[in-house]
């Protein structure tokens, strides 16, 4: 009876597991596709879907149907016509040469015997499969070339490593560490993204801490009113301000500079940052401030000896939030930095529109841009969620 009850209980929970695990699977699938594709050689990416890495290579079935009956499943059954021998296969590496050989009679019999001669497409597939098993076009299932090409901004039709080995690289590549600074590459963009994101995270937090302390522990007229204004400012869309600021920057020569984008992000991060910090600093027990004052502390000491050390969790939440927000931003980078100092999102956006189908590069580039935020998120999820719950509205 007891086991039956437990079984029924388990059965009742089954639909929940089914739905939940199904949803998680669907949610993960697109990212898994990206990750796998980014490690596949370019020819494979364009020929087959990423899910085929779990199945036999392209042409396997055609080979089994047409060739295996005589040449064997491995292709090496006939010693005088060993399909795994590169020198032998070399003669039939093109589909028309192979097709001609298949159409020729062989010892007075049709080459293919009972089996009908395959059409051109199938022959081409078989030829490509033979090139693969004979080692003429040996290529591993996975490669790091896409990442190397994306990091260095390589745009040729082989790979960066192949071109450099042959000494055939384009004029703007050096084939050494300097290529990581190539303006077209993701390596340079990664550094630019860091140069944008770190100061744009620190500045608003610094200013917001001061303001939040004043809002929490100081008397001044219009405090409620000013704070309500901040709550309103928080939802102002960034688009509202792009045009006047880019005109202002054009006059000041700040377009395309890091300083310009730092200041802009600071301005836009502040309302949310102040609200979050004020909610935290304001909820600290007032007794500790009171006793500090009785001991003769000033506002300044109360601020940096009490309020700041006690708000480390809030500072962490805010820092992560602001950092990810800026790291992932495209619009502001597009408008104020553009191609002069391209960041990751800008670079990828450019690749999407100009490269079209270069999926091997695009997937690698996208993963380079996602790696850091994913790492930050997984390591510091706790703080991220807390920051989100405290603010819950962000422009």
């Amino acid at each position, binding site marked *: 009876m007891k086991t039956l009850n437990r079984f029924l209980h388990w059965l009742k929970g089954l639909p929940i597991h089914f739905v939940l695990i199904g949803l998680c699977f669907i949610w993960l699938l*697109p990212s898994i596709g990206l990750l796998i594709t980014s490690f596949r050689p370019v020819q494979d990416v364009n020929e087959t879907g990423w899910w085929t890495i779990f199945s036999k290579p392209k042409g396997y079935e055609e080979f089994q149907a047409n060739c295996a009956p005589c040449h064997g499943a491995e292709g090496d059954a006939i010693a005088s016509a060993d399909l795994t021998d590169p020198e032998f296969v070399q003669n039939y590496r093109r589909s028309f040469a192979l097709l001609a050989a298949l159409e020729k009679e062989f010892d007075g019999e049709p080459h293919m015997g009972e089996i009908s001669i395959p059409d051109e497409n199938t022959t081409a597939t078989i030829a490509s499969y033979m090139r693969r098993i004979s080692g003429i076009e040996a290529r591993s299932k996975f490669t790091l070339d896409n990442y190397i090409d994306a990091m260095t901004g390589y745009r040729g039709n082989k790979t960066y490593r192949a071109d450099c080995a042959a000494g055939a690289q384009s004029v703007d590549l050096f084939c050494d560490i300097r290529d990581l600074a190539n303006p077209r590459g993701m390596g340079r963009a990664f550094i630019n993204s860091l140069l944008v994101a770190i100061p744009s995270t620190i500045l608003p937090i610094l200013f917001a801490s001061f303001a939040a302390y004043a809002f929490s522990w100081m008397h001044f007229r219009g*405090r409620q009113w000013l704070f309500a204004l901040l*709550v309103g400012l928080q939802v*102002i869309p960034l688009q509202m301000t792009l045009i006047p600021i880019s*005109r202002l920057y054009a006059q000041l020569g700040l377009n395309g500079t890091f300083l310009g984008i730092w200041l802009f992000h600071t301005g836009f991060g502040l309302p949310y940052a102040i609200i979050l910090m004020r909610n935290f600093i304001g909820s600290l027990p007032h007794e500790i401030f009171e006793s500090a004052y009785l001991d003769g502390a000033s506002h300044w000491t109360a601020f940096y000896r009490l309020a700041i050390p006690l708000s480390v969790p809030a500072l962490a939440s805010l820092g992560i939030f602001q950092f990810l927000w800026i790291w992932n931003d495209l619009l502001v980078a597009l408008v104020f930095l553009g191609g002069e100092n391209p960041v990751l999102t800008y670079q990828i956006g450019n690749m999407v529109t100009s490269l079209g189908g270069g999926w091997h590069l695009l997937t690698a580039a996208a993963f380079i841009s996602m790696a850091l935020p*994913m790492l930050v998120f997984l390591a510091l999820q706790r703080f991220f969620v807390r920051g989100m719950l405290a603010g819950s509205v962000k422009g």
Partner: protein
Amino acid sequence: MSKNIPGIMRQKGYVPWLYLLPALIVMATFIIYPGLNTLYLSLRNTDNSAWAGLECKAGESCWGIFENFHYALTSTIMQAAFLNNIKWILIMVSVTVGMGLLIAILADKVRYESIAKSIIFLPMAISFVGAGVIWKFMYNYGTGQVQIGLLNAIVTALGGQPISWLTEPRINTLALIVVGIWMWTGFCMTILAAALKGVPVEILEAARVDGANEWMVFWKIMVPQVLPTITVVITTMVINVLKIFDIVYVMTGGNYGTEVIANRLYIEMYKNYQPGRASAIAIVLIMMIIPAMIFNIRRFQEQESTR
């Protein structure tokens, strides 16, 4: 909140402003001044040399100084953008909030709750651009035999014809909304899950003891208890969706009938060099957001009064 500040902490009148000034200056420069300037520009002509509408031709309908708004509110492309934004709001907000609530409730009942939540939440951490690449690949449309995009591979495996998801006007906006849903469901889930954890267990147990089934517990107890949070999430999502830009910019560039307001604004400003029109669109956008803003301020004031 004022009553909580100990009297001993009183200070000279100018001191608070020293703490506030850096933040206030930056915000005034980057939010308030440009906001007002945008309002002004929206009434100016293309090169900001005169008021808008002065060059109106006789016989054509003209809104005078509000000529830019004439464009922003009535042009064919903007009306298409409005319609699409409404589509975005209706579908994306309802699905993200509904799914978020569903996953929050389901995950609460299993032992792998934190892993499941992390998986759903993970897309939040990546950029719209990254998500755009991921999904453009999912939606890839191969003209030949081979489909390297997962969705079309499934469609052809089931015997159908491959679909050009991003250019087919009947489904492409929906295809973009799916990307938004994939990214934002985690946000709704996390906030709603936190609210659900706050529902007292005793109430739920009492209802179950009294014979309520799970369905009734959900509708009669959980939903009313977290209703304030649901409204907050909905407002936030509406604001987010109104501002949606990156997904459209990266995946279709607003072509094939997928235009949205924020993308149009970008195109008018930086492709067509029409700052007047772009500013008018920005003003229209803020007008649509103002109700949500007022709602937020009200909610804040209520919170303060119960503090």
